[in-house]
């Protein structure tokens, strides 16, 4: 199908998508498999429990045009384990990514590196004779910029979490479903036993 792999007439964009999914084994494989099977490209994927332990939040950054995104959202919605999907590209949101960067830092260059760390409000979390490990969080652009600047010193190892995203404001963009009345009673009943 034309456009599915980003060759269509619409411009390619990076879309942060949040999916509330059932917190059960096999769900991640299901979603990863869907992306592979349908030829969707993932830039990053971050998974963690939500405020309700029955559900996880997956933040997936998808690369593609609007048509691809439409299919990604529709296909994800078909999965029984997926409760809700939001595409944040048009929604005001805050996003953060965490990176750990182990940088080559011989004694003579440490000063410069520490300066950079301060400018970015990053933190040094580990020191060895020849390296510094820096913890940095921010939006993806900030993390990219830091890595770009630190590269000339020699990046020994790099770990990034991938983005996590929440909608701005008081509203819950992805209200986690509340237990239904019947289930509440059942739970109480079980508790009384």
């Amino acid at each position, binding site marked *: 199908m034309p456009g599915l792999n980003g060759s269509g007439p619409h411009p390619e964009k990076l879309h942060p998508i949040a999916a509330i999914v059932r917190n059960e084994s*096999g769900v991640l494989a*299901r979603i990863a498999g869907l992306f592979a*099977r349908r030829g969707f490209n993932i830039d990053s994927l971050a998974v963690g429990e939500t405020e309700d332990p029955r559900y996880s939040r997956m933040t997936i950054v998808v690369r593609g045009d609007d048509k691809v995104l439409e299919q990604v959202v529709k296909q994800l919605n078909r999965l029984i*384990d997926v409760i809700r999907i939001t595409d944040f590209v048009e929604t005001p949101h805050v996003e953060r990514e965490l990176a750990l960067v182990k940088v080559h830092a011989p004694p003579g260059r440490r000063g410069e590196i520490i300066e950079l760390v301060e400018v970015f409000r990053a933190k040094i979390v580990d020191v060895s004779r020849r390296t510094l490990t820096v913890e940095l969080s921010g939006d993806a652009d900030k993390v990219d910029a830091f890595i770009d600047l630190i590269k000339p010193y020699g990046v020994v190892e790099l770990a990034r979490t991938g983005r996590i995203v929440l909608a701005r404001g008081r509203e819950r963009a992805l209200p986690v479903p509340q237990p239904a009345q*019947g289930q509440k009673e059942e739970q109480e009943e079980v508790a009384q036993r």
Partner: protein
Amino acid sequence: MSTATKTKEKEAKERQQARRPRKRSGAEAVVEALKAQGVELIFGMTGGAIMPVYDALYRDGSIRHIIVGHEQGGAHMAEGYAKVTGRPGVVMTTSGPGATNLTTGLADAIMDSVPLVAITGQVPTTLIGNDAFQETDVRGITTPITKHNYLLKSPHDVPRAIAEAFYIAGSGRPGPVVVDIPKDVSVGATDASLPQRLELPGYKPPYEGHPRQVQRALELLRNAERPVILAGGGVIHAEAADELRELAELLRVPVVSTLMGLGNFPRDHRLSLGMPGMHGTGYANLALHYCDVMLCVGTRLDDRITGKLDEFAPQARVIHIDIDASEIGKNVPAVVPIVGHAKPVLKALIEGVKRWDSIPDWTPWWGQIERWKREFPLRYREKADVIAPQRVIEELDELLDDDAIITTGVGQHQMWAAQYYTFTRPRTLLTSGGLGTMGFGLPAAIGAKLAAPERTVVCVDGDGSLLMTIQELATAVNYRVPILEVVINNCALGMVKQWQHLFFERRYAESLLKPPPFDRVAQAFGALGRRVERPEELPGALKWALREAEARRLPVVLDVIVDPDERVFPMVPPGGANARFIPSDPQELEPEG
């Protein structure tokens, strides 16, 4: 105390008891959950990991079980059952090879939206991941080919998982669901009850279409000059054939039925144009190509329908009704997307049309369609000394009543059946459309006949297709399932051979077969068999077969030797535009070399 209150109290007490059942094994809970779903028939094959469930079935004794020759056959039987009844078919297998043999059936069912519940045994949870004997990752393997699947971890999961599996398989866009049950789960004890209600927050099948979109669809239709309805298998799943007919008759608009949709609209109706696509009628393809408004209902608009996508219906503004939102706009952009169940959406359109003060006059458009019908009729040549395969279908069409069920394999015979048989009712054609599964026909016919013993069931098969699942003849004989298996025998993988003839300069690479004598094979299985070679024998042989099958309560195989050079036309060359179909055999006048 009044009797009413007493009854109420009694009911409440019973409910209370029903909610807290006695302890029983996971296997017994499986049987109980199946019975709660009204399951009357299971197709399957036992084996190590599923034995506890079979033991529970045996001790219960109320569900009929059919031992199949091969699990793929079991899956197709369950599909046949499901396609005839509209209820989920049930297939049961053991772990490992039992489950992997199911995969073709599951893939077939997801492509054609067939409700299926497959229960598979699994090695004990303590052994999962150890490469134990007959262990395979069934959930992993079946994830891309099921609507949903379960790997149960505890006997307490059984009642809920089975109830959910049936609900998911049968609702919304139907599909197959696998419940993989490790042996310790079926042996372990549980007092978990059947759920009072299902908790599936991520699954809400749509029903009514959005009123604004319905309104927009009505406006498009009203202003159309050359409208066409393209109706697919979704109309059949939705039991919406009556609504489709009412809408088409109200509007007096031509109806094109896809392969999976054949029977959703009577083929002998004056508004029917038959099947579109690669082997569709010329007039159906031309009507789709030149229409200005296309009302699509319950169709995926897959590549065999659209041909070259860029040139499909270039002037059409598409209204697309589908219960699966992901199908809308996937292949063909829709001007009016309507996510909903075909029945209420068509009803809403009917109500809307009834409020119009007049129906637009589409006489010029019909004039054009009638010209196409005269110019491109379905036709084939008959030879005096050899049976034309299309003739077999036409004979069946004359002999069988409207209620009869036709199943098919995949290939030329399937297309001839689709072209030359007058399907007038839903659920009378059971065929493998999306996956194109050779070998589908015989087991599907067995499942269909067991679902509807009072109806005539005929499998129109190919010699190549039949060989893929021929072991199920034993099943049909053992359970005395009187189906008619008509082999359109051209000693070839005919459709492959046709492509080689047309597009590979007649290099018949591995497409010529030497099938065994199917009549004698049938007899060896204990079925009735007869070989038919002469055109004049054909009507008598078909009548004999239909009569004898019912009289002897046995399957009958007719090995009909047909013209090996006959090809399926019209044909849209693969990758070509629908409007540029080849109307009839270009080699027709040339002697075969």
